[in-house]
């Protein structure tokens, strides 16, 4: 297991997480470990745990508007702690991110609007992982 790559998905809606995971597991088969978190706080603790175990986390897929810690705050923390980890945001309000002042403080590689198009999502994920 050590040396494997993991993708962490964060959303306050558990069904979104299930759907997302289904898409990613189906796509990557076993190449990436897919972890899900119902809040940013949980996501951070999972990321800590995974990296302790020696896993690399090249990508997080996060919701933007969440109770408690918001997407921007979460991604800033991720960027501080895991500068190599890239981010894709899945949100219902895409325009909120383009105007966000935090844009340059996060390692953002793509924005996917809800409801997402499966192909668009997977393409952006692939791109983020490759380059």
């Amino acid at each position, binding site marked *: 297991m050590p040396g494997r790559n993991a993708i962490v998905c964060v959303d306050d809606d558990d069904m979104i997480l299930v*759907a997302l995971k289904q*898409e990613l597991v189906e796509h990557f088969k*076993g190449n990436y470990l*897919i972890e899900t978190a119902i809040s940013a706080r949980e996501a951070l603790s999972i990321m800590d745990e995974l990296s302790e175990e020696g896993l690399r986390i090249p990508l997080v897929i996060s919701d933007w508007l969440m*109770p408690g810690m918001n997407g921007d705050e979460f991604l800033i923390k991720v960027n501080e702690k895991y500068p190599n980890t890239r981010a894709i945001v899945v949100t*219902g309000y895409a325009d909120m991110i383009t105007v966000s002042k935090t844009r340059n403080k996060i390692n953002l590689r793509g924005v996917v609007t809800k409801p*997402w198009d499966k192909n668009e999502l997977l393409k952006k994920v692939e791109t983020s992982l490759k380059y």
Partner: protein
Amino acid sequence: MSAKNSPIQKLSLAGRLSVMVFLLGLLVYIPSSIYGAYDSLIQTKNELTEYKDTFEMRARSAFEPAVWNYDIETLRKIINAELGNENLKSVKVSTDDSTLIWITKINKKLYDETTEPKGIYLDKRIFPIHRIDEPSQIIGYVTVWFDNEPSRNKFVRMLVADALVVGGILLVISVAVNISSYIKLVKPIESVRKSMVEAGKSALMHAREKIEKASFDKAFPEIKSMAADLEFMLDEVEKANRKVRESEAQFKAIFELAGVGVAQVDAVNNSYIIINQRYCDIIGYTQEEIKGLSFETITCKDDVPVQLKHTEDLVEGKVRGFSFEKRYIHKDGRIVWADLTASPLWGPGEKPTSYIAVIQDITARKTAEEKLRKLNEELELKVLERTQDLENANCELEAAIEDLKTAQDRLIISEKMAVLGQLVAGIAHELNTPLGIINSAGGTMERILKNEINTVIGFRDQASEEVFETYLKLLRSCCNEEKDNAYKRNKRKMYYNILEKSNTEISDEVIEKLVDIGYDADEEEFAELVRNPEISEAVKMAYSVITLQKSAQMIKISAEKASKVITALKLYAHKDTSGEMVAHDVIKDIELVLTLYYNQIKYGVEIFRNYEEVPPVICYPDKLHQVWVNIINNALQAMDYKGRLIIRVSKNQDKVLVSITDNGPGIPEHIRHRIFEPFFTTKKLGEGTGLGLDIVKRILEEINGSIEFESKPGETTFKVWLRT
């Protein structure tokens, strides 16, 4: 007057005084001098008579011997001696037939004369010389011419000297009187007179100078006091003059600048004496032109007799003034209406002189009155018309009120829709999420069904007994509840540990799927499971089937979620057409609104529901939503979608009380009284209509409810009472 020509009148006061003193002296002197003269006249006369008598006696005795003896020389001696007396002019001694001697004194020299001396004052006497021894025998005659002239002259001289002395004295006194009266009387009086003349000429300054320059030291005290009085009087006059000037200026200003026309009119011939500018302006003539006119010429023909009658009454004293509205003919020919008031300047019983006429231009008023009268007539007609119109309008108005009610209802609906518009973005998201899930799950199901359904169907026949058993076991284990992430991670760790120990190769995909479907195996069981390499197929199969199942479940749940939102929307946007109030569950209503707002609430707002069991309220349900929408929306905006919202529903006697409390910054003191005003808003353009709370109030009034609020920083509560 004749006195003017009298010489006395021409004399100055001093001259007259002198003359008077002189005449007075004479008056005193003349009787005494007459008396003195008479006295000395008598005395002189007596002396003369005595001399004449003694001369006769002396002569009778002295001449007798000489005559008797013809002794001429002795006679001459005696006569010469006698002629030494000045009262004797000539002596003739004669006998019956001849003249013995005749000596006459001419200019004090004695001459032997034969003619009678001449002179008016001569007194001729003849007396006989008797014989001493024979007194009856006359021996001669003595003729004597006494001369009265020296005595008379002496008397006259005395009189003249006396008169001269008295006259001189009187003259000196007169002169003294003259001088003194000039200094003490005439000069001061002249000064006073001159200053009075100056005063008379209104040259008060000169008058004062004159009276001040003149020295009154030598004047009589009366004149001094008169001068002082005059000075005082001049002061008073000056003061009075100043006042007069002031009041004159005032009067003049008032007279000239008066807003009314003022004129002094001769009461007898009706001509203008003085007239002010305003008067002239009103009737269009200059002051000079008017003075040549009488009022008849500038008065409208119809008004002349009226004014004449008034003037007549005034002159006859029947009235003490009159006032009437008349028409003047302006110089340019137009009619000028004026209000004329006349007041006489003579007192009752006095002879009529002139009166003051005051006129005011009332043309504008008259014109206006005329217009008004016409308008009034028109108005009456119009009133009739308008009454009809009004009745019609009333009908229209009633219809308009009906329309307005409809409009108000429409306004409420508009506001409702406006709120809905603001909610749409959130609601869209709220729908997009379940739709996204449905979409994703549907896609997953589609893929599994398309690619793997044959494998799944054929799996029973192709798989070994053992693998199929595992497959069924896996499916059964997953029917349990979804495992949480931490559990799954632990399982995954455990599985990898076992694989490491047992040195078994199995793909990450299989492990991942095993973990994901929530397979709950202990170490022994897992080790047993992975011993058979064919197990991977069973895991993949089970995963596909469970994914199908999960997806179907997700679709169901998401569809329900979306349906709930749609229902809320439908309820909110519903338009009640029955127009009747119904019993309604208020808690359900609030929850409906919270559903609509869920998307905006869920990220930052904690909602505390404190619901008691309450009876249904009587209301229009489709309007009542708006009450909660507005209050909750305001609360959320006030706390910027972060904080605590407490919703309490309780029974309060026969009413239901809903109170909604937020922990936002509170409503500022200075706008509290305005928040229910229509179009009052603190929100940015486009964020609010400003109608929200106004509509809330109207809706509540309609259903006999009420609203009030309390606000302080950190706690704002809106309380709504509803009828059950």
